[in-house]
Structure formats: structure tokens, C-alpha cells
């Protein structure tokens, strides 16, 4: 019995170790190396064939220079800050768009809900890249949106959205919308409508009932959704690359440059490690939120 439990518990941990910890340690190791013209393009590499001596030799050659380097060029902290700003703002926009959708879904008659849920999930059935390319077709100067607005007569010359930060925000909000809608919907769906009636019965208006009851009740869903959007948006590369202009500075692009253009795997790894450290804060907060929620439900 105890053995069985041990096995069961160890499965997620093994998973974590194999798919997160080991790759992460490899990245940390590379971040402490220096570049070299070799395969792989950094040194020292861990030579296990030499046993303990090789390991000690390896350790003695590690250096933190790559991390100090990151502090010497304003590019890196500017890119981190800019990424944080873009991720935070797009999380906010996603929330503003997703909340009414989730709220509506949780309020419609039961028979509609599977269809609506389906519609939210449906975009996942197409490749992410195809969907982003479709947005290029919509947002470009000659794109559908501008054609439509000009046909309506709202604008006389095309709006420049494509290749600007606006397009990046649109792309992120669109891509991550389901990640925000679903947890909020789950929270609102669980919520007993009589709670709102009780609030109104006790003298609250419909609006204040929303603020005082519905919103706090969906808090965990909102928090979960925000993390699910914020965390991947922070390291986003594809969307700013395809929809954004070159002035959209994001850490994902800097990482790509370090890795591919400069062939500097160690610095690229250092950038990734710092990104992960930045992400650990919200991830830990998220974890705590989930735990508290579970405790509250049990």
C-alpha cells in the first residue's frame, strides 16, 4: 500500500524532474559557460568520462560573467521591462474581453453552454501559426479590417495597425483568450445564482452585487486566467515577430538574437534563466492561489 502511494506520488515528481528540472539545469549550466567555436558552441562542457576530476575541473571553469554582462547593456533590462509591460497590459485587455464572455456563458441556459464552450475551444483546432497569419490578413493596410472600415466610411485612409504594438496586443489577446475565458467561466459556473439574489435581497443593486459578490466569487478564476495569459505572454516570440513592428522590443526576440544571430548560447541561456527567475514569482503566487482555493473547497 505504502509502496503504491510512493509510486503514485513520485510520478508527477519524476515528470517535473524530467521535463522541467533537468532541462533547466542544462540551461543554467550553459549560462555559466563561455562561448567557443566548437560543437557545442560553449565551454566548459561536463565530461563525465573523466569522473570526479572532470566534474571538479568543470565546476572551476564556471563563471557568472554572462549574468554581469546582462546588467551592463541597457538592452536587457529594457527588454525585460518592455516584455513585462506588454504582458501585463495584454493580460489586462484579455481580462476585459474575456470576463463578459465568460459571464455571458455562465448565464445562458444550460443547453447553450456546450456550444459556446465549443466555440471558445474551436480555434485550437487550427494551427496557431495559421491563425496569426490570418490576423496579418485582417490587420494589414490593405487588410479586411481597413477595407471594411473604409467601406463603412468611418475612415478615409487605412489605419496602421499591422507591424505596430497594437497588432501585438490584438494577437496576444486573441491567442490567449480561451485561457482566460475558461477558468473564469468555471468559477462563475460553479457560483450559485442565489448568491446574487441574496445580495440584491439585502439591498445591493445589480451592479454592486456584481462587484461585491460575483467578482470576488470569480476571483480565483480571474487570477488563474491572468497567470495563464501573463506567463506565456512574457516570453512570447512568435506573435511580436509576425504581427509587431521592429520597434516592439520583447525579451523573446532578444533571446532569439543571442541564440541565433550572436551564436552566444551562454548569454542566451543567462537571459532565459533571468526570465525564468522573473516568472517564478508569478508562478509561485499562482500555485499558492490554487492551493488556497483547493483548501477552501474541501
Amino acid at each position, binding site marked *: 500500500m505504502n509502496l503504491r502511494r510512493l509510486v503514485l506520488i513520485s510520478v508527477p515528481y519524476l515528470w517535473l524532474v524530467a521535463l522541467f528540472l533537468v532541462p533547466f539545469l542544462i540551461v543554467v549550466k550553459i549560462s555559466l559557460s563561455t562561448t567557443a567555436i566548437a560543437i557545442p558552441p560553449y565551454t566548459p562542457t561536463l565530461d563525465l568520462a573523466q569522473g570526479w576530476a572532470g566534474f571538479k575541473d568543470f565546476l572551476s571553469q564556471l563563471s557568472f560573467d554572462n549574468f554581469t554582462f546582462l546588467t551592463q547593456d541597457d538592452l536587457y533590462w529594457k527588454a525585460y521591462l518592455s516584455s513585462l509591460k506588454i504582458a501585463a497590459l495584454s493580460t489586462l485587455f484579455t481580462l476585459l474581453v474575456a470576463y463578459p464572455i465568460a459571464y455571458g456563458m455562465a448565464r445562458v441556459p444550460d443547453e447553450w453552454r456546450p456550444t459556446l464552450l465549443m466555440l471558445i475551444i474551436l480555434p485550437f483546432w487550427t494551427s496557431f501559426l495559421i491563425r496569426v497569419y490570418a490576423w496579418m490578413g485582417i490587420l494589414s493596410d490593405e487588410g479586411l479590417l481597413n477595407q471594411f472600415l473604409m467601406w463603412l466610411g468611418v475612415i478615409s485612409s487605412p489605419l496602421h495597425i499591422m507591424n505596430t504594438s497594437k497588432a501585438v496586443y490584438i494577437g496576444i489577446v486573441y491567442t490567449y483568450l480561451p485561457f482566460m475565458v475558461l477558468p473564469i467561466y468555471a468559477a462563475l459556473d460553479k457560483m*450559485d445564482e442565489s448568491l446574487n*439574489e*441574496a445580495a*440584491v*435581497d*439585502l*439591498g445591493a443593486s445589480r451592479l454592486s452585487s456584481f462587484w461585491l459578490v460575483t467578482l*470576488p*466569487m470569480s476571483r480565483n478564476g480571474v487570477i488563474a486566467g491572468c497567470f495563464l495569459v501573463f506567463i506565456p505572454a512574457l516570453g512570447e516570440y512568435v506573435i511580436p515577430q509576425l504581427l509587431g513592428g521592429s520597434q516592439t522590443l520583447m525579451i523573446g526576440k532578444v533571446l532569439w538574437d543571442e541564440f541565433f544571430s550572436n551564436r552566444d548560447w551562454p548569454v542566451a541561456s543567462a537571459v532565459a534563466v533571468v526570465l525564468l527567475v522573473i516568472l517564478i514569482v508569478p508562478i509561485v503566487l499562482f500555485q499558492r492561489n490554487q492551493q488556497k482555493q483547493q483548501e*477552501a473547497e474541501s
Partner: protein
Amino acid sequence: MAQVKPQIVFDPWNDPEAKPLIECRSITKRFGDFTAIDNINLNIYEKEFFALLGPSGCGKTTLMRMLAGFETPTEGKITIDGQDVAQVPPNKRAVNMMFQSYALFPHLSVWENIAFGLKREHAPKDRIEERVAEMLRLTRLEKFARRKPHQISGGQRQRVALARSLAKAPKLLLLDEPLGALDKKLRQDTQFELMDIQERTGTTFVIVTHDQEEAMTVASRVAVMDAGEIMQIATPADIYEQPNSVYVADFIGDVNIIEGNASPMAGGPEGAINIAYAEGQDPVQAVATTPVAEGEKVFYAIRPEKITVSHQPDPDRANHAFGKIIDIAYLGNISTYRVQLASGKLISATMTNSRRLTRRAFTWEDEVWLSWTRTAGVVLTK
């Protein structure tokens, strides 16, 4: 516990001068094709503990939600304290509701739950403190003020819900199956507590329940509902003793219904009739409170405890029937005998067990006489 104290009889419904707190005039509520409430008239008086009793789907909850303002009547008028409330939204009514699910705000503490309504009317801080403390005292929840709803027991949650709905001192408190979620023992204790609180606060309570025992215990008057209509409104005693229909008689407690044809009893007292119900059986002698035509089909409803079981017919009682005991339900203090008459009709009779079991007078297959008086049962025409 309810105190037994001498008091003046509380029966404002019998006082033509009394002004009802709530008046429902010809209320009809339809959801699409479905009529949930069908032309109901109802007066509820101040300080009353009024029960809406009926099976699920009878419209009692809809009626209550109309009083709270969550539904509007399709037709008819509701006035509360003389004011037509058609245009008054739920948050503006001096009516509070205790929800069946309690609907406690899970993210707020017990204290904050109770203070919720007071804060909405922007009561001064010390007034809120004072009132919440009073409510906590009333419901004996002082120790749990800082807890969240999920940290207290079901019974405590029920009391929080009650305290919250009473905090604003509403003119009318609506209670939707308030004890439904409690187990039986706790339910009985809580019934008395509810009555006590109702009496102490002097609030008008309207309770919705499907549990006739609960309604009979707590209410000053009971409205028995069926399929959107009110069948009878009366005190618990009248409902039990004087049901106005087979439905009410059957819904409240156990009853034997004897169906037969009425004929006036020659030389009997006023209203006395004979009810022929089976070939070869003596007709049941009864007293009808409403005039009954010759040969009219009637239902004679008689409670099991009104019938005595004996080896010989009881000469003091006018009605007798002979039959065989086919079943005995021993319930400790009482036993219910199921007696089959010659016609095959089954009659239940309840006797108190004043003697020890071993010396019990009757057993299975015994042939016995059932006896009851003329006024023991009621004559119903519907």
C-alpha cells in the same frame, strides 16, 4: 425553547378591522404556457408565522419569490403594508429572504455576511457593530463571527443565514425551506428556535415548506397549496381537524377516506347525514358542515386516532364497523392497526399503548369492532 405563557389569542385574521401586512389580490403567474400560480388571494398579518405548504412544483416558491420581488405577477396585485410593490425592485423592499441554500457569501466572514445588508443601506459604523452583535447573540454565533461559512457546521450556517436576513429588521421575512438541509433531530430543535426568534423579534415570517409536520409546528396559519392554487388557509388545528378537501386531509397526517353517497338522517341533529359506502354495511353517520344534497357523492375523512378498536362495538359511539386486523404497526407509544372490512376496505385505527406489549389486547387475524362518533370525521365534497 418556546415559552408557554398566558397570552391573548393571536388571530388577526378573524378581526375584520385588522389590516393585513401583505395582500395578494388575484395573483396569477405564468411561465410561457405553464401556470405556476393560478388566481391566488391571500392576506398575511403582522407578526404572523405563516406557512406555505405543498408538494414540490405546487407554486409555493414562486409565490414567495413574488413577495421578495424576484418574480413579478403576470396578473394581480401585491401590496405590502398598503403599498403596491409591482414597481419596487427586491433591493428596495422591506422584505428579506432566507434562501434554501442559505446563499451565504463564501468569501465573507460570518460577521461580514450579517453586516452585508446594513452596509448596503450605509448605516453608521457603530450601528452596524451593534446590530451585528445583537444578531450574533440572537443566533448564538458570537464565537464564530470571524469564521468563513465553510468553517462552520450546517446548523451554524443556517443560523448565519437567519441572522443575515433578520439584520435589517425587515417587516417581512421569507424563509425558503429553511430547515430542509438539516438532519431530523437538529430540524426539530431549530423549529422551536425559529418560533422563539420570530416571537422575540416580532417579525412577520412566511415560510415555504413541503414538510407538513414542520408547517404545523411552527406556523400560526398554514396555506396548503396544490398546482398553483391555495386549497385551504387555516390554523394548524383547523387544517388537521377541519380539512376542506380530500387533498388537504390526505396531505396533512394520516387519514381514512370513505367514499359514499349521502342522505339526510331522518330525525338526526342539524346537518346529520348517513353515508352509504358499501353493500351490507351500516352507513356512516356524520355531520356535514355544509348542506349536502340527497344522493350526493361525499368523502368522509376520519383520522386513525379517532377510531377505537375493541372486541365489542362501543355503544357510546354511533358508528361501528366489523373487520379483521391484517397489519399492526407498533410505534412504541402507539400502534396503528390496519383493519379490513367485509367490503375489502382498509381502515387504519390508532390506539395508544397504555399496556405492556405482552398483554396487548389484539393481534393479527383478530376480528374486531371499530367505533367512532358522528363528529369524529369530516364530510368533504371535493
